[in-house]
């Protein structure tokens, strides 16, 4: 005879679940609306999506810090809140990009927006827990939704991208499952906190098994974060996706991935498993360098941005390797700033998107397309240049502050060599960002009317660009307060 299980509602602390529930219910609502009345305009779903995400954001901001809930599965610590805020703000910026002037296949389906909200919920689950199983569930929810979003773009390259991403994702999922299984076998728990405790109790023996678990985890998360050698999907997938989605992918899933990586690797690094530390460092440096030099030789702006985002990820992996509070805070500050700049850059590409490729038979956005843009579309060229300069880390634009804090965290922890490598890589990166500026400002125009640059322009896209440009420009004003908030959040969650 089983004992009836009594659980008091208070102890469940359902409040910790509300953010994700809002997103999921919102997604279901969109599906229901579509069932009731077909063929509603996409703008309704966009606005609905923004509204849902705004409410979601409100409920995240209303969370108490460091609360567990739902049988201790949920964990709303500072890091979870900060990362969810970044994810939600980025998602809110992403949605209006559906309102371009041209019609694209995916936006015809309300499912696109529902799927997007499911993905957001998945990412939120990933960051708001330290339970390996829930992380897995969140990861897969987000990924499966994302594969579909990519494929919905309905071009040959999109299907190819989705298939590649899916297949490699499956392998990564296998790595993740293996890694979790080993950790569970060693410790009998799936909660990272308890795993750390148990491993510490047994003095990190047998080390080979622990390392094997760590390696599988590196493989899984390395795939998500596009670390070398698990990065090969990135350029192809970015190229196949629509520009906004590529911009989105280069940030939000990575934020979630980094949160998991922080939770998982930092206890290992801090308890003196130097092998993990060194491996991660080598992988991060390799990622940064390899992606940077490959980006140099790209002919397409979107592929260039894809490689550059890999190198940014490598740069940020070093923050995890350093592992101090300052480094972790810098990581999130970096993402908060990177989000606006990168979304802005990809939106600029999105604005100039046209249905037929008249500049290159394969690429949508070859460098030649932007030649002489300053004479045809001066405002657009200046804004694009602004984003490029920010990505290159030129002061006083936003990303400079992110870079400088990460590098100063490295110096503070006596990683002088790392700091130099980071600085050198920023110098290499400046080359390909400036290459676009050179094309835009110094070359003769490839065409005479400016319509190619604004084919897909609409008020909502311009608004998004305006917001991104403003944040990029004015970041100097609010970097301080944001960093203070993030640092506080890091400290209370013990990272």
């Amino acid at each position, binding site marked *: 005879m089983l004992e009836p299980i009594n659980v008091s509602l208070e102890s469940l602390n359902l409040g910790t679940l509300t953010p994700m529930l809002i997103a999921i219910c919102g997604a279901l609502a969109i599906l229901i609306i579509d069932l009731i009345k077909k063929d509603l305009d996409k703008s309704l779903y966009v606005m609905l999506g923004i509204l849902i995400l705004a409410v979601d954001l409100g409920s995240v901001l209303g969370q108490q810090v460091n609360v567990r809930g739902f049988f201790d599965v949920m964990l709303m610590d500072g890091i979870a809140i900060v990362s969810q805020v970044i994810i939600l703000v980025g998602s809110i910026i992403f949605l209006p990009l559906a309102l371009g002037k041209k019609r694209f296949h995916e936006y015809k389906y309300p499912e696109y927006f529902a799927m997007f909200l499911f993905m957001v919920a998945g990412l939120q689950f990933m960051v708001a827990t330290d339970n390996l199983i829930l992380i897995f569930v969140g990861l897969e929810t987000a990924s499966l939704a994302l594969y579909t979003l990519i494929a919905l773009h309905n071009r040959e390259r999109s299907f190819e991208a989705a298939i590649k991403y899916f297949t490699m994702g499956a392998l990564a999922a296998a790595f993740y499952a293996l890694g979790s299984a080993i950790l569970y076998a060693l410790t009998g728990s799936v909660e990272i906190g308890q795993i750390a405790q148990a491993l510490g109790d047994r003095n990190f023996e047998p080390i080979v098994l622990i390392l094997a678990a760590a390696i599988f985890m590196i493989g899984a998360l390395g795939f998500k974060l596009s670390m070398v*050698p698990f990065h090969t999907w990135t350029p192809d997938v970015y190229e196949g996706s629509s520009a906004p989605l590529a911009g989105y992918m280069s940030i939000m899933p990575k934020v979630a991935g980094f949160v998991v990586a922080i939770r998982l690797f930092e206890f290992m690094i801090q308890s003196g498993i130097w092998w993990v530390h060194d491996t991660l460092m080598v992988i991060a440096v390799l990622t940064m360098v390899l992606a940077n030099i*490959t980006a140099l030789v790209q002919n397409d702006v979107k592929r260039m941005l894809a490689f550059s985002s890999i190198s940014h990820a490598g740069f940020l992996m070093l923050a995890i390797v350093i592992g101090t509070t300052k480094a972790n805070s810098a990581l999130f500050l970096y993402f908060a700033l990177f989000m606006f700049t990168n979304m802005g850059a990809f939106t600029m590409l999105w604005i100039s998107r046209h249905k037929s490729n008249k500049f290159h038979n394969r690429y949508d956005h070859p460098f030649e397309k932007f030649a002489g843009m300053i004479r045809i579309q001066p405002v657009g060229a200046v804004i694009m240049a602004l984003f490029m300069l920010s990505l290159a880390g030129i002061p006083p634009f936003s990303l400079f502050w992110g870079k400088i804090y990460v590098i100063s965290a490295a110096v503070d922890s006596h990683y002088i060599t790392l700091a130099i490598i980071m600085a050198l890589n920023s110098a290499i990166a400046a080359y390909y960002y400036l290459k676009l500026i050179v094309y835009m400002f110094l070359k003769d125009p490839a065409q005479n009317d400016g319509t190619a640059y604004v084919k897909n322009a609409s008020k909502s896209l311009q608004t998004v660009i305006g917001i991104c440009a403003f944040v990029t420009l004015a970041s100097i004003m609010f970097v301080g307060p944001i960093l203070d908030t993030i640092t506080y959040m890091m400290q209370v969650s013990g990272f």
Partner: protein
Amino acid sequence: MESLVYIALFAPLLGSLIAAAFGTTPKTLFTGIVTSSLLAVSMFASMILLAMAVSGAYIHVELMEWIGAGDLYIPFGFVVDEVSATMMVVVTIVSTMVHIYSIGYMEHDIGFNRFFSYLSAFVFSMLVLVMSDNFAGLFIGWEGVGLCSWLLVGFWYHKKDVTRDVNPSISPSWAANEAFIMNRIADLGMLIGLFLIYWFTGSLQYSEVFAAIGDVDMTIVYWIGIFLFIGAMGKSAQFPLHTWLADAMEGPTPVSALIHAATMVTAGVYLVIRANPIYDVVPDVGYFIACLGAFVAMFAATMALVNRDMKRIIAYSTLSQLGYMFVAAGLGAYWIALFHLATHAFFKALLFLGAGNVMHAMDDELDIKKMGALYRVMKPTAIFMILASVALAGIYPFAGFFSKDKILEVAFNEQTYILWFVLWVTAGLTAFYSFRLIMYVFFGKDRHTEWGAHPHEMPNFVLWAMSPLALLAVIAGWFEGWFHGYATNLLPDYAFSDATHHMVAMLIAVTTAVALGGIIYAIVRYRGNGPKKPTNVNSPVYKLLINQYYIPVIYENVVTKPYAKLSSMAWSIDMKVVDATVDFIANSIYGAGSTARGLQTGNLSKMLRLMAAGVAALLVAAVVYGTLR
């Protein structure tokens, strides 16, 4: 209180930003109106602040911390005291009138909005310069006005370069660059001065610097005084950095009136006045400043004697009057320098705006020998310009009389009789060339109908905008006694000896005589059909003067060309050594990129294999590590 300071300071900036928002669009009248009204707001705020400064209330505000690094703490601080309140009122009055005037003057210019954006930005920078409570803020304003001057002188940047015989200033963009580069040289001196101040007094706040200057080694104070004055020489176009001012006349005339007559060029004088505690410690430097000032006064006046370009004549007269101000400041009569600065701002701005009216009537013709008899058609302008010229010549009871005569008295009182004599002669020259211009332009034979000019007066509101300046050009001098009491609350008083007191009437008589003589001679010489015996244009003296003592040519041959040679030499070294090295590094990295690209085949099977291989390799490494440990 504080809000008044901020209103006075930021209203022009707001105007500038509003106008800038419409900078690329064609003319919209309201940008002119908005900027002008905001400047009027700033003007009234400045006047109230002046009234408060009169009643002895200092206002000192700190907007925010600006630089705080280690021991260095520089706030964005502003101070309203006797000196800065005077400067603020002068600057905002002239600016407001010039803004309103420009609405008419720039009416048909396609860059109308852009012009107002620059002009208001200039006023903001100028206010930062005069209101700052520390040298760093002053320097920011200093550079800001330099930048705006560059933008405005080169406002018609699309005009092509021509040779020096066609137009001595070559082109607006050339003139703008010349002004900017020449000021860079001076600013280097100024920066060194500021570094020295910070190094030896540990602060850049005026109050702290002046309190500590007494304890600093005398030699150092000498150098500080000299370097600060080098900065002042650039902004105020003192010899040998004077050539840019006449060339800067390429800018639109309201710009010349505001920047190159009334405000920016007086910044150097302001600096010396502001730094008076430093110059009091080193009277020798002050004496040098006075000598250079007297030299420039005469030097510029002689060039004005023969020039045919209306705006250049007025520019040389500005240069000459700046010389007067430096004499006063150098000899320690700071309040008199400030007083002349203020009166000069009014009548010189008026003179320039009048010249603008004439240019407008003459289709931008500047040669005074192609004008004549304009009095009939442009009566108000003619009266304004005559008023301004009389004031400039220093005839009682116009503004110039009070301030200029005081400077001559100072020179006499210091027993520097040579300085006094030079200034006395210059006063005569000033009167002569001012009225030469008046006679050529407004009286004598009509020489413009023959080349087809159709002179017409400016719209009424433009003339109204000039009238406050005209009024001030007449009455500003009457406040001398009051100003003396007021300014010496902050600035050191200047005491005349008894001997000078006895001589004052005599001095005034002598000076007035020479000025009247100059005027009468000009009138007699240029009335009717012009001079009976025309000037010999081939005489060496004439050639020397019309070619500005050949100084621009000398600069070109001695400085510009050798420098260009040196630069091209450095360039070839750079190409062969530095560039080659950099190119080599870049090419190797680029090559590495092409190789690395091979990884990216796009083949899914290869990609999966690579991933698995990565994990496998790591596992092997881990096993090796585990066994070795």
